[in-house]
């Protein structure tokens, strides 16, 4: 059983998507560790270390995602889990921006997968299976 850490980063309290992601991933047979809303990078990384997680799925809805996710890959490396898969999704920047560009910015920051607003969580599960070699 693969373990996935999920949560909502920064000063972000959008809880609805998070609850639904937990429900769907669990239903699909994952071991889900939900750090919930208002979580720091440390909360995510700490949970990932403790549970030997295969992937971290960061949600950011409120627009400060770009600030909140800075150096997240570096911090993973530093914490010794440099290889963990890093996904990010939600409304990760302020305003309607060209998604291709946004994706590039987050990929440069070390995220493996970057999702646009309103992504169906089922789509991400397909990627998970691929990336985790299931």
């Amino acid at each position, binding site marked *: 059983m693969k373990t996935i850490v999920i949560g909502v980063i*920064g*000063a*972000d*309290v*959008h*809880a*609805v998507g998070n*609850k*639904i992601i937990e*429900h769907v991933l669990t239903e699909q047979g994952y071991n889900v560790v939900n750090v*919930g*809303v*208002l979580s720091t990078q440390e909360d995510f990384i700490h949970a990932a270390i403790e549970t030997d997680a295969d992937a971290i799925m960061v949600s950011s809805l*409120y*627009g*400060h995602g*770009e*600030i909140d996710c800075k150096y997240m890959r570096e911090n993973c490396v530093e914490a010794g889990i440099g290889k963990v898969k890093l996904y990010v999704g939600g*409304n990760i*920047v*302020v*305003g*309607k*921006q060209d998604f291709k560009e946004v994706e590039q910015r987050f990929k440069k920051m070390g995220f493996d997968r970057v999702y646009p*607003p*309103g992504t169906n969580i089922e789509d991400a599960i397909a990627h998970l299976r691929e990336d985790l070699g299931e």
Partner: protein
Amino acid sequence: MIENKKLDWDYFLKKRAQILRQWETGSSPLLDFESAIETLKNIPEDKNFALKLRKAKASGETMIQPRAGVAVLDEHIALLKYLQEVGEADFLPSTIDSYTRQNRYQNALDGIKESEKMGRSMLNGFPAVNYGVEGCKKVIDALNVPLQARHGTPDARLLTEIIHAAGWTSNEGGGISYNIPYAKSIGLEDTIRYWQYCDRLVGFYAEQGIELNREPYGPLTGTLVPPSISHTVAIIEALLAAEQGVKNITVGYGQGGNIVQDVAALQTLDELTNYYLKLFGYNDVFVTTVFHQWMGGFPADEAKSVGLIGLASTVAALGKATKMITKSPHESQGVPTKEANAEGLRASKMVTRLLKEQSMPSSTELSTEKELIKKEVNNLIYATLNVGKGDLAKGVVKAFEMGLIDIPFAPSEMNAGKILPARDIDGKIRILEFGNLAFDQEIKALHKKALEKRAEVEGRKVSFQMTIDDVYAVSQGVLVGKPRRKDEQNENH
């Protein structure tokens, strides 16, 4: 222990001194009461939120107000002016950024700098505390319509001091409504205390002859919240505010989707708030209502979003909401550009002005729904007072602890989070899991029956999957979520 009692003035002043030290802008001389009172007295009548609302209610036309806020002062002013002129907004907001809401003024400062560097707003709102009274004054001075702070700040005391001293004549929020949907682990006692402070300040200004408006935040999580639950919170916050001396209150409600339930909600919100204010002896509080256009997930398509905005505006007008908070075609994407924001405003304005002479005729369906909402609210308020041994503030804290009041999808640990809502066959929001919610058996039976009817028609069981389907539904263009997977349905269907 918390109490629903007007704060002692000396205690208030002592607190005030501490609060103004929380960030450097708290030391501005403009925060001296003398200055602040003069500033507020100089605000002309048509830029006073409270007074303009009185006129609006009498006119029958639903007023419109957007959400809007960016990191950099000059751009924030330009944005608001645009929404006033091109958007034809009747009231303006300053939506405060999320760092300020969490009192992280240093982060907000970084955000301002980053935004200036990048040439685009890196913050999701206007960091009012960082700009202080001086900056906030520039904002209102540049405008012709009343201005309100809209945020989601559990502890908004410093923010509140600053905006009122700057001449902003309304403040959104409340001890419950700016905690449960906006925080994770802050105690309700704390936030009620913080908001008693904010209300006491407004009460103080009232004693000086300055009428300011206060607006409990109505829609809560914006996601399938049954009207009786958000009404209960709104009424309790109105009562708590009135105790501190607030005289002008706008109670709110977020569009649910069923038109009859929405109109019933708007009508009962006004009726019940007035009823309870008078019941507790607050006879001189002026009540208005605000309708929030759909607060859940929006469709990705912009044209569909504007369609939804048009529908919402129709409902607000038919329900005679005093004002309406508008959305934009960009809603599902992110903070809107000023153009998109103004489009949402003008689409809304077209409808509310056209319908200003009209309202929903009374009907059996409407009055049945109104009766139900009233019974439910009475249940919840009775239970709250009961566990508070007659004290509303104590009662609220206990009621949430025990799950007697419970808000769906809330992030807060102070909230039981046991209830699950779902829609009945014609889209009215009902409850499928009650947890400890203080509804009587008769009411629960009504909800159950309604949902079982839907389950039967859809050939499936009443379950959390229904709730999930309903959460997604509107963004996918339907109101009542349809079963997504085949295996979810009964054989015999």
